[in-house]
């Protein structure tokens, strides 16, 4: 199953929307860098497509609260997610 990694804000980039458009059952979403802005507003409900992971250090750095529907993770968990999934798709723009 695919791990989708999004690093851009959903408010300024199509990366998250494009990613959601290709989501399959069993896929997982990981938000990093500006991708963590998906924790804002109504986004968490809009992207409830499967497990959503959020890199806690990136969310904390931006003063974002990780919503309950996301799983806040550290770097070690990020690595294990990468090992558990294939392929990995980076949606970086």
């Amino acid at each position, binding site marked *: *199953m*695919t791990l989708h990694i999004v690093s851009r804000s959903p408010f300024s980039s*199509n990366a998250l929307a*494009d990613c959601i*458009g*290709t*989501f*399959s059952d069993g*896929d997982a979403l990981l938000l990093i860098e500006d991708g963590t802005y998906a924790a804002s507003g109504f986004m968490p409900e809009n992207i409830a497509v499967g497990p959503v992971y959020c890199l806690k250090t990136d969310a904390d750095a931006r003063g974002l609260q990780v919503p309950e529907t996301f799983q806040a993770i550290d770097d070690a968990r990020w690595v294990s997610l990468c090992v558990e999934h*294939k*392929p*990995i*798709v*980076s*949606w*970086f*723009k």
Partner: protein
Amino acid sequence: MMTTNTLALCRQAPYGDALAREGLEAILAAAAMDQAPAVLFLRDGVFQLLPEQAPSAIGQKSLLRNLQALPMFGIETIHVCERSLLERGIDAKQLAIAGAEIELVADTGGFIAGFDSVLSF
């Protein structure tokens, strides 16, 4: 030589910035090394396939002309996301790359999941 099961995702419109061209160049470079990836055009990437692109007046080379070289580089199937075409009002019958087959993909997620590695452009 080891063959890797790789997919290149093309999701950027041409001309606004260099990303679509850079993606294509990476695909051609890999293909020139006998590592041709599968290619899937989706979202705004399908705009790369529009016929009759005439960018010389904006000082750019035609990305479509470059795309038409894909069969010469050994890439003879062009996968295109069906829904992305629909959203943008593009008729699949308009699209043609000489020497290549255009294959519409309905389930992009399932398609992507069939690869070991994915390059995203």
